């Protein structure tokens, strides 16, 4: 069965267009189309557990748009792509797992959905109490004093994903400060003490 895709946009034209492009590719299953994020829509979003959500950031009001990706993580574990109909704020676009433009060719749309799904597969999961190998890599960067943005660029992931990794690292280790995480990394031989002399 194909990857499950959910589309959220107030525009029927956009929704139908995306549906048709994804349908033609033959490898996706459109499991729902929502017009907004009303409480009932939130419940559906949660229940449908989509592999990827394509959302028009216009469903968020301006104040919450910058934080939209984090809000959505309340209801879905899937990859989230923004569908930007009009001009969008560069900063806001950075939070998404991918962005689809109104003018993208069908092949580009498919490629972007694939990329977002792949990226998401690599994203933090809540399973287990041991640090995953990706979490260890990120911990090392934190210990070396790298900023979230630098870490994001280094691994080619979104800042949002970096923050989720960091939250999970702190949840698992119980250690919050950078200095404390550095001690953890050193004691567990994740980094060499020589790096700090």
């Amino acid at each position, binding site marked *: 069965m194909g990857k499950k895709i959910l589309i959220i946009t107030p525009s029927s034209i956009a929704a139908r267009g995306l549906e048709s492009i994804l349908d033609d590719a033959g490898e996706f299953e459109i499991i729902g189309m929502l017009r907004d994020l009303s409480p009932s829509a939130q419940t559906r979003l949660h229940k449908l557990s989509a592999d990827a959500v394509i959302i028009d950031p216009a469903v968020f009001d301006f104040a919450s748009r910058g934080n939209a990706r984090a809000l959505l993580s309340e209801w879905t574990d899937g990859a989230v792509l923004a569908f930007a109909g009009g001009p969008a704020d560069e900063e806001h676009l950075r939070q998404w797992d991918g962005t689809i433009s109104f003018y993208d060719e069908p092949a580009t749309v498919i490629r972007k959905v694939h990329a977002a799904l792949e990226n998401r597969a690599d994203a933090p999961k809540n399973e287990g109490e041991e640090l995953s190998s990706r979490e260890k890599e990120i911990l090392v960067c934190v210990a070396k004093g790298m900023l979230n943005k630098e870490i994001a660029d280094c691994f080619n992931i979104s800042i949002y994903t970096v923050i989720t990794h960091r939250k999970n690292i702190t949840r698992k*280790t*119980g*250690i*919050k*400060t950078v*200095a*404390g995480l*550095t*001690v*953890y990394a*050193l*004691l*567990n031989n994740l980094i060499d*003490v020589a790096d700090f002399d």
Partner: protein
Amino acid sequence: MKKERHPLSASMKIADLVDFNFNLLGVLTRLGIGFGFGDETVEEVCRRTGINANTFLLICNVYSFDGYRPSSDVLREIDLRDIVRYLRRSHAFYMDVAVKSLADAIQQVIEPCDERRKRIIRSFFTQYKDELSRHFEYEENTVFPYVEAVLGHADHPGFTILQYEENHTNVEEKLSDLKNIVMKYLPPECDNKQIFNVLYYIHSLAEDLEKHTAIEDEILVPVVGRMEDNG
């Protein structure tokens, strides 16, 4: 908060107070109340030692009831000088006694570790200690003199108590990190009994610091704020 929920009163015997909450022993010491108080009540001891009894009871309440927030009526009846004196003495206690005991306990627990690990843990602890000490110094050199100036109606240009939004978070987080590192990640060659000692010292220090912060946030800041408003 209703009065009956806080059964500490001026007519209580000091000895009963300590029975009620053993941690108040530290409060007594820091207020300069030594042992040998016999059957004296709170009121009698306070009169003898020159401490405002309301202030004394307020500090005891903060220490005994989590989340205790004094009413503005209670705050009107205290002497801020006693509060500042108490906070200063607490600082001295933390640095000279509590942190020192913790440092000794850590030194012992890491003794069997290799040099590399010893250095890592020692350096983290030193960072914590320096941060705590800088925090106290700021209060002693800037905040408390300001409070004393306000109390003495002296000029105190360029500072208000609102600026004292001192951030306790980082020192608290570092101590909590230290607890987790010691509890979860020390190498197996470390002695269990000594790890327990370290955790015990961390826990008492963290608990005391929490009450200390509550006294600053719930008593010092609002009372001084009110005095500023009244000119």
